[in-house]
């Protein structure tokens, strides 16, 4: 393998229900940041989108950081298929020779990326939280990929020196998307493909929507989160959250005990959140939990144990019982809201 033939950063765009998944925009932002930090490589950022997206959708990818947008176009591609997507992207990688190929670590991305990496015989790093080019060699295109392991207890930096592309999935909610800039220049490269001939043994028969009213906690401005210390009193958190306009989330312990749905779990095996305010109630602060919330702008922790690790990550730590404090907070806000002037 001649590694010098491989260049540019390709980003797989997750697109369904006529919507670009936020995680893909975050990857475009990160790819732009990487190329700007190592201009000597002269790398472009290339978005890859399958299906028949509208002209507006393709432009949106340009406004968010792509220099070129490759659209593998066919009507049947609006539904994801492991085999069809793998076959088409494997062909793309063999012809285009990307040096770096990034995929969001969503359920779809984590189904596709391992299959694709195995097919084009390259290494894959999962669920990365940080990317940078080799810091010791300014001309190097070797990607240093950092990811948590062992439940967030340990971090590893992974490199792939022997095979190309350097492929990695990236945890949603960690990287920053670029603001929309309609003055950006980009090109659109539409390629007709013919997936009809690909033999697919898997069929999607039906789609069931989970509670459509459920808020995605990754998008909340304020989160009130409960741990084992809250027990079966999540309604106390919910009353306070309703008064502030916040969302309620939970730690793994709370989810395991069935106090709150898995969809609202914050942490290494749940979601990564970075709200403006994160209020942790009765959460001790296991490393795996902190991995999911430490990037919040402002963290308030309430815990009975003054030695709880959560306090080391908080901006304000309150030693006490959240179940006593929260109803008083709810009351404070209510009186403020109802003040006559």
């Amino acid at each position, binding site marked *: 393998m001649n590694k010098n033939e491989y260049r540019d950063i390709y980003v797989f765009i997750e697109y369904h229900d006529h919507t670009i998944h936020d995680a893909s925009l975050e990857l475009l932002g990160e790819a732009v940041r990487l190329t700007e930090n190592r201009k000597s490589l002269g790398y472009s950022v290339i978005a890859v989108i399958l299906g028949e997206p509208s002209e507006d959708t393709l432009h949106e990818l340009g406004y968010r950081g792509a220099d070129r947008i490759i659209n593998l176009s066919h009507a049947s591609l609006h539904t994801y298929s492991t085999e069809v997507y793998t076959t088409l992207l494997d062909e793309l990688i063999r012809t285009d020779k990307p040096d770096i190929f990034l995929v969001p670590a*969503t*359920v779809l991305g984590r*189904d596709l990326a*391992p*299959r694709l*990496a*195995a097919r084009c*015989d*390259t*290494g*894959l790093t*999962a669920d990365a939280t940080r990317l940078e080019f080799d810091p010791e060699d300014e001309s190097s295109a070797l990607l240093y990929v950092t990811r*948590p392991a*062992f*439940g967030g*207890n*340990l*971090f*590893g*930096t*992974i*490199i*792939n020196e*022997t095979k190309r592309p350097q492929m990695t999935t990236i945890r949603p909610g960690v990287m920053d998307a670029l603001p929309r800039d309609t003055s950006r220049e980009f090109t659109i490269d539409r390629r007709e493909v013919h997936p009809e001939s690909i033999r697919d043994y*898997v069929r*999607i*028969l*039906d789609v*069931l*929507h*989970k509670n459509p009213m459920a808020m*995605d906690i990754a998008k909340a*401005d*304020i989160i009130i989160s409960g741990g084992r210390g809250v027990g079966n009193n999540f309604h106390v958190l919910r009353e306070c959250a309703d008064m*502030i306009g916040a969302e309620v989330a939970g730690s793994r312990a709370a989810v395991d005990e069935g106090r709150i749905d898995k969809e609202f779990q914050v942490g290494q095996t749940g979601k990564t959140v970075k709200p*403006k*305010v994160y209020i942790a109630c009765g959460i001790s602060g*296991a490393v*795996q939990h*902190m991995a999911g919330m430490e990037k919040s702008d*402002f*963290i308030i922790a309430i815990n009975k144990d*003054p030695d709880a690790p959560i*306090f080391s*990550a*908080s*901006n*304000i*730590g*309150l*030693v*006490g*019982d959240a179940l006593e*404090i*929260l109803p008083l*907070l709810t009351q404070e*806000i209510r009186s*403020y*809201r*109802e003040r006559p002037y």
Partner: protein
Amino acid sequence: MNIVVLLKQVPDTTEMKIDKEKGTLIRTGVPTITNPDDLAGLEAALKIKDQQDASITCVTMGPPQAESMLRELYAMGVDACVLISDGKFGGADTWATSNTIGAALSSMDYDLIIAGRQAIDGDTAQVGPQTAEKLGLPQITYVDEILEISKEKIRVKKALENRYEIIESDMPCLITTLSTIAKPRYMHVKKIMEAFDKDIRIIRYDDLNLDPMTIGLKGSPTKVKKTFTKEVHKNSDILALDPKESARTIFDMLLTHNFIGKKEASYE
């Protein structure tokens, strides 16, 4: 029906200790468990066997001590256990691991392969799909429920971020299971006694026809450059106040930063 279940013995990450100086794991004294997603997958297989004629073979790759896990699986009611173990396989990344497991499985007879979604030590969720690719099998990942199964077809419920999909695949096929698919049963007292007399088939490097450059640490494209632990760095005020003052402190912070506006006036 022949079902192969892939399982991994992992350190219990909730009991994990870290050497903060060296940035490495302290492995001694950490209890090992069967990876939870894998054990749930095994239970899904046992449930199939409860209802129809099926034979379950458990396969793991790891050091010789993984045998203790396989004995426990015998006590849960599986029919055969295979341990893929050789010094040459050690230190493998997911690509090299799936080359090895794929080669070991290629000579076995299976209709369905079940793997846990991901292991709690690496959290990669890659070995299942990559093994499916090596064997040329269709895959369904993140399976939350098996709805129907025969020798020809499997129908499952897959969990995604905001929806479920009902998916059907031809057999043979590989699925990866979430821990929610089934609650593992306890070991059977009588079977615990028998478990120690059962055979465990060991597969070594010499038993497989593998290119040494595709396995183990040497054959792994991804390598760990360094490991480190996190430094916690926020400057925290830890206050022990009475509940009312505590509530007031939070309220003041929210108010100062404009998170609590006056309720919009309504003109009705």
